[in-house]
Structure formats: structure tokens, C-alpha cells
């Protein structure tokens, strides 16, 4: 790794760390797991920094490495934690001007938590308002396939949300 500018790398990760946080929140179930995943993603970013030549936007590259790490680093004990909520560090207001309550946010998170890891990755990029072309570049499928996947995931979410609302 000689010759790589560590300071440049650290500045980059510090500046764009919200991307890593978002991925960690989506894939890790508790504070310790989030911390571990953040650490692992940082290691992978550093390892991949050697081959990053600026051909993709920095956020695209970071999302790609972070999501690849989160999906491939699944450990056996992680399965147990799948039902745990991933929103422990959110302290939403009771209701805002748009009318989204704490319950709305919790329900969205709970529904997302029930998706499989690939669907979670795609919906995260969609929620972050990434263009279909960028999602296709990160995930490695065609733009059309991205559209189809998002429609299906939204349908799944709708089903889960309806089910949850009926229970409530």
C-alpha cells in the first residue's frame, strides 16, 4: 500500500462517512454490529483505494464497496438478529409538517428489515434518490432490471406494511 496517500483517503472517508453510516444502519442490527461493519467497510475502502482511479463518482464507488462488504460479510450469528430493529439511534419527533409520525418511520424500518440483503441494498439506493443508471452501476444489473426490481421490492414493502398495519 506504499505510495497511497493516507491523508487523502482519511479526508475522503471522513467527509463521506454518512454513506457508510447509512449502509451500516441498514445492515447491522445493534450498535456493536454497526461499529464492526463500519470498521470492515473502512478496511475494504482502503484496500480498494489502490484501484480506484476516479472512473466512477466517489459516492458510487463508496456505495459499491460498502454494500459489497455488508452483503458478503454475513456471519452465522447475524441470522438471529434479523428481526431486531435497526433504528435505535433515531429520535424522531412525534409528528412533523409532512405528517410522518414516529410510527411511520418505525414501520418503514421494520418493513425494510424483513427484506433480503440484496433487496435492502437496492431499496437503500432508491431511498437515497439515486438514478437508475447509478443503481445499475453499483449493483451490476441492467437499468431495466433495476426498474423491475424496485417495483417488486415496493410491492413487497406494501405487503409488509399492510400486514403490520392490520396487526396494529
Amino acid at each position: 500500500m506504499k505510495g497511497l496517500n493516507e491523508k487523502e483517503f482519511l479526508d475522503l472517508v471522513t467527509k463521506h462517512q454518512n454513506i457508510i453510516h447509512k449502509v451500516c444502519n441498514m445492515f447491522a442490527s445493534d450498535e456493536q454490529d454497526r461499529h464492526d461493519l463500519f470498521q470492515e467497510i473502512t478496511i475494504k475502502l482502503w484496500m480498494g483505494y489502490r484501484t480506484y482511479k476516479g472512473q466512477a463518482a466517489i459516492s458510487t464507488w463508496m456505495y459499491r464497496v460498502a454494500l459489497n462488504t455488508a452483503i458478503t460479510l454475513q456471519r452465522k450469528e447475524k441470522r438471529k438478529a434479523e428481526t431486531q430493529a435497526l433504528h435505535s439511534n433515531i429520535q424522531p419527533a412525534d409528528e412533523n409538517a409532512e405528517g410522518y409520525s414516529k410510527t411511520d418511520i418505525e414501520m418503514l424500518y421494520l418493513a425494510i428489515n424483513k427484506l433480503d440483503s440484496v433487496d435492502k441494498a437496492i431499496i437503500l439506493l432508491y431511498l437515497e434518490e439515486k438514478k437508475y443508471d447509478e443503481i445499475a452501476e453499483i449493483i451490476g444489473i441492467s437499468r431495466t432490471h433495476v426498474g423491475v426490481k424496485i417495483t417488486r421490492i415496493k410491492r413487497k414493502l406494501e405487503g409488509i406494511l399492510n400486514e403490520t398495519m392490520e396487526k396494529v
Partner: protein
Amino acid sequence: MELDDIQKVWKQANQEQNLHEYSSDEIRSFRKSRSRDFTKWIRNSLRMDFMIKALIAVSYFVLIILFRSEVVTQIICAFLAVLTFGLIWIERPHYTKAVLLDQSTESLQAVLHERLAFLKTFYFRIQFLVGLTNPLLVTVGSFFYYYTKYGRVSFPEIDDILVFISILIISFLFTIPTTASMYGFHARTLQNSLASLEDSDHWEKAIRSYNRSKKILTWIFVSLMVIGIAILAFILLK
């Protein structure tokens, strides 16, 4: 909440998140920390194996000097030393492959395919090559035992040779349950992700086929164990 609103709900949730911002120093310490990826585990075990094999090879050279009056033993030791170095040579590209896998920043689909291909080809080869270290270690240990106790290698009777070969095979097979379990878990995880990503039943079929062969192998393994114990009990109680 309408489904079309989920982007807005998400935005609000993120605005209200109370995230701990890491400092540059904290991120530096993360960068330097130990990875928990299985490729790192493979690289570490290969590095350890290189060292053990190198020590074994050097020990064989020491044995060649110690057994200077026994030509047959010297030839065997020379052959095993060359074999051990040869195994290190064969293992080297596998290590490089694991490093490249770690540095990959391809798309998710490409990375999943790369890792699965690595598991299907390199992983078993690596475990086979690493597994060979145990019999080499047992052999070198036996030679030193003969040297310190008798000062020479006595080539024993057929029964002793059979027992020795059995020990070598058992020492080689020792790591197989862990190897198979790790392979099974990682392969299933990757195949599940690919099945979800590619909307293809190809990977689901692969998982079903893997589960089927796992059941068959478990049955064979358990049956052999039962037969072995029965034979042993018969011999002992006869």
C-alpha cells in the same frame, strides 16, 4: 403512509438520526484494524501454513544430515523436503488470488460471482494443500522420534506401516468438518444473494442440490462411523 412517500419518510428519518461522527483518527484506527472477512481468514491460514511448511522442509534437511549413514532415509527426507517446497510454490498463487478478491471494487453482482468462483475452485484446493501439512508434520515428527530414541529408522512390519498410514490419513482428514461447514455457509449466503439479484432459479436449484448432497454425505459419514465402531467392538469383544 402511502408507498410513494417512503423516500420522504426516509429523508426525515435520516435528518433526525443521531449519528456518531467518527474523527479522522478513529477512521485511521479502523483502517489499521483486523478484517473479519473469510478471505482474510484464508490469507492468514495460508501465511501460517507457509511458515509451518518452510519449517518442515528445513527439518527434513536437518534429518538428511542426521541420518548420514542411511541412504534410503536420506532419499525419503530429500523427496519430502522437495515435496514440501513444491507445495509452498503451488500455494503461492492462491494467496495472491485471495488478496485480489479483497481489493475488488467491482459491482455487487460481479463480486458475488468472483467470491463464489473462488470458493468453488480455490477454496477446496487451498484446504487440500493446507491439510497436507498435518501428515508432513507427523512424518517429520516420527523421523525425529526414531532418531532420538533409536538413532536410526527401523522399517517396521506391515501392521505398523498400516497404523502409520492410518494416522497420516486421519491427520489429513482432521480439518475436513470445519472446511466443509465454512464452505457450506459462505456458498449458501452467496448463492442466496445471487438468486435474489438475478431472479433466476439457477441458484435456488444449486442450493437445493447442495442441501441434498449434504444430507447424503452426512448419511454416508454416519454409516461409516457406525460400521467402524461395530467392527472395533467386534474385534475387542471377540
